[in-house]
Every structure is written in C-alpha cells, then in structure tokens.
C-alpha cells in the first residue's frame, strides 16, 4: 500500500504536469511589434499575387462593412454563441495590423493567435487557413500591408460566458484544429491538386457549406453537406446536392467565374461577394476550384441525371398560366409577381431563371427562397449584376408563405416545406447581414 506521502507526490506531479500542459495549450507569447513597413518595401509582383489570393480568400467580405473603408473590419458576424465583429486588417499601427511582422501574420493564419498572443475566435477560419503555404501567406501579408491604413478600433464582441473567454478557444483548437492534413494526391491532376489546396485552404468553402457541431466546428464526416451563413442556407455541394440539374465542371466554372449559369441561376446572398471576387482572379485558379469541386459533387447517378433532364424539359415548356387554374393565392401571386420575369423565353441573366431550375425551391431549407422573395436582389454598385424587386413591402408573411408553398409544390418536385410562415417571419425580422450591408 502506497504511503500518503507517495500519493501526495504523485498528485502534486500530476497537478504540475497538468498545469504545464494547460499553459502549453493556452499560453502563446506576444511577437514583438515592428514599425509599420513602408509600402514600397514590398515587391509589386508579390503584392499583386497577394491581391489575387485575398480575392480567393474572400477576405474583404468579412473584414469590410459595405460602404465603409476596405479591410477596416467592424462587420457583425452572427454565430450561435453571439455576435463577433471582424477585425481591422489594414496596416494602421494602432488599430490594425501595422505593427505585425510577417511571422505574426503567419501565426494568425496558421494557428489563430494574434500578435499579442491572444487566441482568435474560429469565425476567422484558421482551421482552413492553416493549410495556406508560407509563400502565399507572405504574398497576402505584402498585399494587406500595402493597403490604405484606416484608423478603426475593434468593436467589442457580444458573447455570453464562457464563450467570451478566449482561453476557451485554446480548448477548441485542441479538439478541432488540425495542421497539415491536406497532402497532394499524386494520382490526381495538377489542376485537381491546385483546386484541393485552394478549396480546403484559403477559399475555405467548407466554412459555410459544411454543417457545424454544437461547438461550432465543421463536422468532418459531413464535408460540404450544407451549412448556415447569415440566415441563409449554404447548399450541399457534395453528392447530397439538391440542385435540380446536377453540377458539372463546366457549370461550376461558369457560375463561379461569371456569377450565374443558365441551368442554375445567379449567385446571391453571401455567395454574391464570393463570385464577385472570383471574377477577378486568374482563370486557372477558378478552373482548379471547379475541377476539385466537380470531384466532390461526384458523377451524378443515372436517376439524378434523369431528374435533371426532366427539370430542363419542364423549364423549356413551362407556361405562364398555372396548371391548376390559378385559384389559390399562391398561384395568383406567381402569375402576377413572378411569371413576368421567371416564365419567359428570356434566359438568365436578362430574364429570371425558370423556377423549375431554382435550387432555392428544391432545397430542403426554405430560407433562401424566403430571403429572395422578401428582399429581392439589389443591384451591386459599380458592376453588372442581376436585380429582382423585393416583395417585403407589398406582401404579408402569410401571402409570401402561400407563394413559397405554391412554388415548392409546383416547381420544387419535393415534399412540402413545413413551417414556411415561421421561416418568413424570422427572415423578415433578421433580414440578412449581406443585404443590410448594402445600406449606407
């Protein structure tokens, strides 16, 4: 039988070891501040490369309040744990990252730790950015450090205990942050490998399109199975996709590059900024993303292909007059408010997509359709973009729900949505962050 003294020693050692382990997990040193480097100290080709990478990373989307200064942060990002405000990543010395060395920037990208040594919330998707190469981090750093410095102090996050404790993030990382898990696959093409590197890393597609667990981490066994973002549903983009027509490599490329595809419609909601950014990066990178994602979708089954062909046939033969005689509120609203654009022979982008091809209507989640009908599609300032009037001011929740239920039944070819009225009411209340951002 061990003496109390030995037991005491063992306990003491265990406590000390535990404390050391805890410190090792939690504590990160500050990295020395630098004087903000002069913009001309960066190679212009590197800056240009960093600009393309920042566009692929969609950095401006979260780090810019629409209508405000680029990369100055302050955008509220709603999460199940509270609201997190994006940070200022301009090279302002006091409120931005002006005093960050390249090593500090790289550590933030790879490990989610700021220059002071604080853990960053994984709203900043370093679970993806950890896969970005050192060279690409260098280019991103060069790009950001040559932007206009903007003085914009960080807004305080609105998180409940214990999520307001950054220490908790250290535990999250132990559970969910994996470094170096993406390796090149020599059996696949160089284009596929480039796509895998971008999609799993900088482009962080899974951050929206993969469902998350109770602790806000992506469910690794459900990659690309569909997730949530800003009160929109990010569609499943694997073999569970519910798009009426199966996606293929060319359709993905065209959609990501130009923002719309005749068989799939236009990218809107939070995806609008993504395609806007991808329209300006090297075409080969968008090709690579499409090639990799086509593999993630996988080849469609015969049955799936058949349903796609049927949807295309329905779309080309659709009549403006509803088949049921148009006596219900939903049918009458469709004829008067939707059909003028959505049931014509004008193909997108000049006409609305035939609703037999609408992913919003075949989706298991009614929120995207509700968002679009309520808010419409506002024009994007300074670029060509699709537009659609919103109906929030002319239709009640009940009328929009009746319309959505009608569209789902007539065009979705799927079981009816439940609780459509509740969804419309919630969406009207929250509207969407991306649309609010369009307001000055």
């Amino acid at each position: 039988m061990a003496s109390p003294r030995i037991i005491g020693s063992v306990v003491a050692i265990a406590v000390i070891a535990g404390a050391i382990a805890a410190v090792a997990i939690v504590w990160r040193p500050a990295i020395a501040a630098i004087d903000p480097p002069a913009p001309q100290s960066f190679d212009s080709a590197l800056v240009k490369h960093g600009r393309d990478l920042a566009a692929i990373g969609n950095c401006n989307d979260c780090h810019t309040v629409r209508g405000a200064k680029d990369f100055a942060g302050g955008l509220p990002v709603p999460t199940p744990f509270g609201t997190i405000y994006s940070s200022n990543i301009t090279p302002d010395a006091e409120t931005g990252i002006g005093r960050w060395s390249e090593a500090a920037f790289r550590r933030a990208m790879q490990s989610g730790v700021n220059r002071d040594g604080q853990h960053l919330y994984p709203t900043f998707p370093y679970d993806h950015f950890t896969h970005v190469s050192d060279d690409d981090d260098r280019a991103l750093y060069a790009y950001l450090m040559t932007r206009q410095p903007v003085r914009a102090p960080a807004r305080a996050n609105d998180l409940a205990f214990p999520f307001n404790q950054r220490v908790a993030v250290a535990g999250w990382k132990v559970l969910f942050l994996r470094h170096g898990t993406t390796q090149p696959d020599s059996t696949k093409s160089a284009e596929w490998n480039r796509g895998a590197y971008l999609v799993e890393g900088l482009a962080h597609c899974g951050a929206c399109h993969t469902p998350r667990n109770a602790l806000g981490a992506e469910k690794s066994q459900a990659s690309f199975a569909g997730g949530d973002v800003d009160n929109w549903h990010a569609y499943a983009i694997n073999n569970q996709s519910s798009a009426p027509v199966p996606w293929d490599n060319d359709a993905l490329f065209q959609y990501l590059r130009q923002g719309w595809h005749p068989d799939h419609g236009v990218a809107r909601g939070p995806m609008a900024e993504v395609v806007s950014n991808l329209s300006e990066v090297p075409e080969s990178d968008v090709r690579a993303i499409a090639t990799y994602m086509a593999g993630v979708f996988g080849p469609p089954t015969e049955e799936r292909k058949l349903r796609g062909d049927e949807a295309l046939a329905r779309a080309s033969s659709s009549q403006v007059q509803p088949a049921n005689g148009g006596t219900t509120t939903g049918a009458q609203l469709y004829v008067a408010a939707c059909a003028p654009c959505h049931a014509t022979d004008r193909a997108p982008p000049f006409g609305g997509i035939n609703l037999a091809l609408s992913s919003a209507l075949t989706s298991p989640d009614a929120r995207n359709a509700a968002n679009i009908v309520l808010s419409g599609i506002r024009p994007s300032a300074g670029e060509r973009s699709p537009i659609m009037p919103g109906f929030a001011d002319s239709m009640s929740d009940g009328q929009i729900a009746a319309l959505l239920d009608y569209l789902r039944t007539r065009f979705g070819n799927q079981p009816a949505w439940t609780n459509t009225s509740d969804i419309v009411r919630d969406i009207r209340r929250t509207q969407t962050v991306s649309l609010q951002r369009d307001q000055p």
Partner: protein
Amino acid sequence: MMTLKVNGQDHKIDADPDTPLLYVLREDLKLNAAKFGCGLGQCGACTVIVDGKAVLSCVTPLLLLEGKKVTTLEGLGTVETPAPIQRAFIEEQAAQCGYCIAGMMMRAQALLARNSKPTDAEIRAELQLNLCRCGTHMRILRAVHRASHLMQTADASPAQRSAP
C-alpha cells in the same frame, strides 16, 4: 368585384385578382402618373405608395390591396397646388424626359415620410431601384433635399403655395 382605395376614394373594380395594380390605375381609373416602363419591377417608373411604402405597381396584383390605401402622384398635389415633393422637382427642374419622375417622386415621398432629413447616401440607396436614362440624377438628389427642406418649413403649406 373588389373595393380599391386610391387617393382617399373607394373604387369598385371588376378585374381578376391577379391583375397588376398599374393596369387598373391607368386603364380603369385613368390615373396616368404611374408609368409602364418595363412591366417587370426593374425600372421603378410605376412606383406608387401603398400604406406608406413604395411599391412597384406593375408587379403588385389587386389581391394584395384588399383593405389597403393606395396613393398615386395625383393624390399628393395638383398643378395649381403642388405638394412639396412636386414643387421641389419643378424648382430644381429635375426632369429631362420625365418618364421616371413620377416613380422617383413617389419613392422619395415614402422615404421622406419615414426619414425627414435623409443624407445623400440614404437617398441614393433608396432611389437605387428607380432608373433614369436621361441622367438627371444630380438634380433628382437636389430635389429630394429641397423637398425635405420644404416639408420642414411653413413655406410648404397650401396657403403659402396658393398665395400670389
């Protein structure tokens, strides 16, 4: 048969419930201020006010108007006694061909009713959905500011306006 309340008056309308409000205004009620531009809810020339909100009458079927109050430009003022928004547009000469202007004024009116002193950016965001091909945007902006000012001063009262 339904009752449609336009500019304070009830009208008995005999039309299908999916008939666009614009057609009824122009063809049945002969209220021609709201214009047919695109018929697709994309240009804003048909904008009217329904229960205080700017609505595109070409994609608003009658069935949505049960029990609601429709206001058209004719309901705001007349040639003899123009409303502040109309007076402001005249004083700024904010029309070239004028086809879009009724819609512009209606959406601006709805904006000013809920925000009496909008900023330039707020006016631009609000009127983003109304297209003008002649390019009188800068005058339109000035006119909305002027209307905002007129509405806050006694100068805009009907008595003042009809005085010699």
